[in-house]
């Protein structure tokens, strides 16, 4: 498979840590996403690494026994160590205060740090979940709900396993994801992911079902509001987007994968070690291994590695992704426009229901895509430049398809990329066939490229001409190139020759040091004076005295135009 066949990729800097062994204990704090490697109970050292941290934190602790759990508080201020099953040690005389207590029989729990919600599994079947919400020093109980377990053969004891539950924030809402291995309805095979929506207030409701159409071992991740389901047997992953339309049966929406299943791109782990050993070649990272442990939202821990996912797609896949993005974007733009028109028409007062459309997380406008995606993408050196251009053009194509006006900075990005890679023939074609829309900033960019690609000057002039609002710019460009006659002819062609400043043109003509040209321009304005005022003389307001003197000096007094009488 070539590199264009993957659309999921593990991020580039994995957090590496020493494998767990009798001496080394490894703990993972999913709240801060830190890996703790504790050696000898902390006596010989604790190394803490996180995906964002540049330098690992190292320290020593007194060995007071086996460490059961170790975590930092936010910003690594307070370290909490649990050595026994019941005591937690905090350094430096800090005290804990019991704020609240509840008495519940709990099978297992799951905590979601992003939403500060804890889910407790209760009852024998373990499928009644009681959520609590932590906020500002208080703990509020949310309505409990039941996970529907699949119908099971009588011999097996079915209960809700902790492994089949995940919590994640998707599009700003908290969902509980249940990986159900068999469908409730008898006629469909294959596993499903059931999404229960857990609102801040109100009951939890089953909202979405993601159909996987296969069985086996799965792992779940949520990345960028997309639900990624990894299938171990086929070593592939599928992506779901609950914002897209699915089949609504009255209560629940059924979703199918956005894209065909693909594997995560194989990843090579560079070996970091003592200098003597750096000649070792990178080791391929085993994907979809059984030693994977998945943490939400987007972290997979392999036995000796911690990696996280991000997206990269092949061109047709990218195109599809762009289309879906722009579909949402267009909907938002249209809604905005209707709202604005209605507001201007004064309807908002009469219709209190008319609300400003909310820009959800699904709406990615061009500025976002440009800033966060395309700019960085274009800088990637290992990317073949034709692919880069193709991706940019796909985005523009997609915008055009949805009739969204393309912002000029996108065209500029295309041009700059083309120039960077010396693809001038492509640039010329894009402009010739109006693939890139005309705009003044673009014309100015083309002017600046003249030293790299001389025809860019004419391409720029042509573009300015097509933009019928750019006449002043055209004149300035021509004058700057000492094409005084061309500038004058142009301005005359659009009927503006009576309004231009004689001084400006005479200055430009004088600069060329071409006396014949100066004569021509001077005579032109003398004739204009004659036509407008009945005398060939310049008015004092035109500030041309210097030029009159120069003319007399070069051509003689008698060369001045004599007033014609009619």
């Amino acid at each position, binding site marked *: 498979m070539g590199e264009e066949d993957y659309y999921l990729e593990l991020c580039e800097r994995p957090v590496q840590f020493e494998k767990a062994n009798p001496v080394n204990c490894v703990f993972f704090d999913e709240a801060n996403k830190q890996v703790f490697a504790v050696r000898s109970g902390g006596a010989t050292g604790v190394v803490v690494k996180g995906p964002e941290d540049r330098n690992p934190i190292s320290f020593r602790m007194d060995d007071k026994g086996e460490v059961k759990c170790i975590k930092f508080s936010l910003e690594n201020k307070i370290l909490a160590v649990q050595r026994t099953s019941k005591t937690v040690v905090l350094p430096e005389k800090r005290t804990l205060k019991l704020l609240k207590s509840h008495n519940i029989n709990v099978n297992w729990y799951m905590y979601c740090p992003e939403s500060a919600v804890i889910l407790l599994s209760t009852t024998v079947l373990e499928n009644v979940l009681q959520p609590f919400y932590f906020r500002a020093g208080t703990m509020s109980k949310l309505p409990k709900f039941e996970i529907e377990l699949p119908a099971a053969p009588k011999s097996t004891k079915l209960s809700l396993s902790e492994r089949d539950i995940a919590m994640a924030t998707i599009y700003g809402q908290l969902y509980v994801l249940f990986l159900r291995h068999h469908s409730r309805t008898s006629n469909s095979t294959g596993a499903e992911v059931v999404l229960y929506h857990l609102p801040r207030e109100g009951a939890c409701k089953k909202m979405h079902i993601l159909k996987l159409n296969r069985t086996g071992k799965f792992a779940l991740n949520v990345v960028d509001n997309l639900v990624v389901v990894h299938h171990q047997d086929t070593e592939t992953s599928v992506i779901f987007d609950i914002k897209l339309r699915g089949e609504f049966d009255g209560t629940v929406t059924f979703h199918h994968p956005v894209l065909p299943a693909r594997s995560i791109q194989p990843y090579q782990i560079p070996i970091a070690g003592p200098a003597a050993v750096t000649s070792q070649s990178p080791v391929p990272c085993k994907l979809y291994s059984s030693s994977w442990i998945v943490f939400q939202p987007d972290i997979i821990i392999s036995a000796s590695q911690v990696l996280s996912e991000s997206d990269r797609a092949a061109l047709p896949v990218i195109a599809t992704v762009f289309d879906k993005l722009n579909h949402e974007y267009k909907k938002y733009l249209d809604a905005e426009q209707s709202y604005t028109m209605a507001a201007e028409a004064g309807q908002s007062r009469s219709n209190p229901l008319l609300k400003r459309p909310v820009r959800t997380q699904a709406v990615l406008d061009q500025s976002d895509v440009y800033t966060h995606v395309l700019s960085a993408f274009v800088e990637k050196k290992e990317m073949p430049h034709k692919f880069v251009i193709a991706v940019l053009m796909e985005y523009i194509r997609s915008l055009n398809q949805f009739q969204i006006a393309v912002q000029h900075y996108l065209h500029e990005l295309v041009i700059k990329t083309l120039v960077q890679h010396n693809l001038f023939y492509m640039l010329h074609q894009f402009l010739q066939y109006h693939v890139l829309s005309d705009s003044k900033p673009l014309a100015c960019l083309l002017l600046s490229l003249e030293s790299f690609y001389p025809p860019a000057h004419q391409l720029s002039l042509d573009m300015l001409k097509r933009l019928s609002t750019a006449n002043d710019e055209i004149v300035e460009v021509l004058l700057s190139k000492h094409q005084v*006659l061309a500038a004058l002819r142009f301005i005359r062609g659009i009927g503006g020759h009576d309004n231009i400043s004689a001084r400006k043109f005479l200055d430009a003509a004088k600069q060329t040091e071409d006396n014949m040209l100066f004569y021509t321009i001077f*005579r*032109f304005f003398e*004739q204009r004076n004659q036509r407008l005022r009945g005398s060939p003389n310049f008015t004092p307001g035109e500030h041309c005295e210097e030029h009159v003197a120069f003319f007399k000096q070069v051509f003689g007094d008698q060369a001045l135009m*004599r007033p014609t009488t009619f």
Partner: protein
Amino acid sequence: MVSGRLRDGVNTEDHKLVFLQQGPLLLVAVSRTPQSAAQLRGELLAVHAQIVSTLTRASVARIFAHKQNYDLRRLLAGSERTLDRLLDSVEQDPGALLLGAVRCVPLARPMREALGALLRRCTAPGLALSVLSVGGRLVTAAQERNVLAECRLDPADLQLLLDWVGAPAFAAGEAWAPVCLPRFNPDGFFYAYVARLDAMPVCLLLLGTQREAFHAMAACRRLVEDGMRALGAMRALGEAASFSNAPSANAPAYSVQAVGAPGLRHFLYKPLDIPDHHRQLPQFTSPELEAPYSREEERQRLSDLYHRLHARLHSTSRPLRLIYHVAEKETLLAWVTSKFELYTCLSPLVTKAGAILVVTKLLRWVRKEEDRLFIRYPPKYSTPPATSTDQAPHNGLFTGL
């Protein structure tokens, strides 16, 4: 002999070489200018004519028959400046050679006719041609009816005479010298009486057939002078001469601004609808070359442009009737019809519509000023009957030295 293949000239990277064989003389032109081979040949012919006018063709032939490697320069001493001026005029004032016509001093028709009549009256024995000129331009000429009846006075010959009298030798006072009119009769010559009138650039040229007629010619001249004073012609010609402020001696001309067509910088106009009996004198008119063509380089450039236009119009393979050429420094319009041949130089900013307007105005102006700009009816006179027996045969010329 110049072989046929060399007739069209030889082109090198920078130069054009043209060969012309005339009798024992081989003339070569080497040029870097854009003139066509035909135009260069025309210049060589003019040079040859200049030589012939000094020596006659017959004597040249005789000299070289006698001595094949004779150095002709010994006989041409004194004419070098005339030859130089001839070649300079190609660059500075190309109209005459290019158009094969003569330029007149603009003068009111009544005055010119009066002067013509005056010349007709003032005759001398053997007088064949009287020419009155100012600054190298023709005021009027009178031809002896019998002498020149059958043969036209070729404008090239007339131009040659006008140029000839501009030589320093004739700058003041009076002079008596032989001259041959190559196109009229290359083997014979006239005796020319040349005088400056009233310490002015006005020049009177009297061509006669009689060697001893100097005093008669001088008497004739005094008659002309008196007559001119009576007519007030001196003043009129003086005004014409000082019309332009150009410092050159080639003064009498008018300014292009007189046409009143803005955008027009210069032109050459040659009428072609001359009535048959007026064919003796093809003429052209053109204004003084003014700014922006005040400098020699610009004049030369303009002359080259006119040469190019002329060559295109009269190309043997693909002649044209109209050329409109917009360039950086000027716009050119050249036009030949059955009535006229016109070359105009316009501002480069002129539009096509503007150019048409200018040309229309110009043509109208020329039509209006026709009588002033051209000699419409060259006068003829008849000499009194010959008295002495050494009258030559009826064409009045001696041959041989």
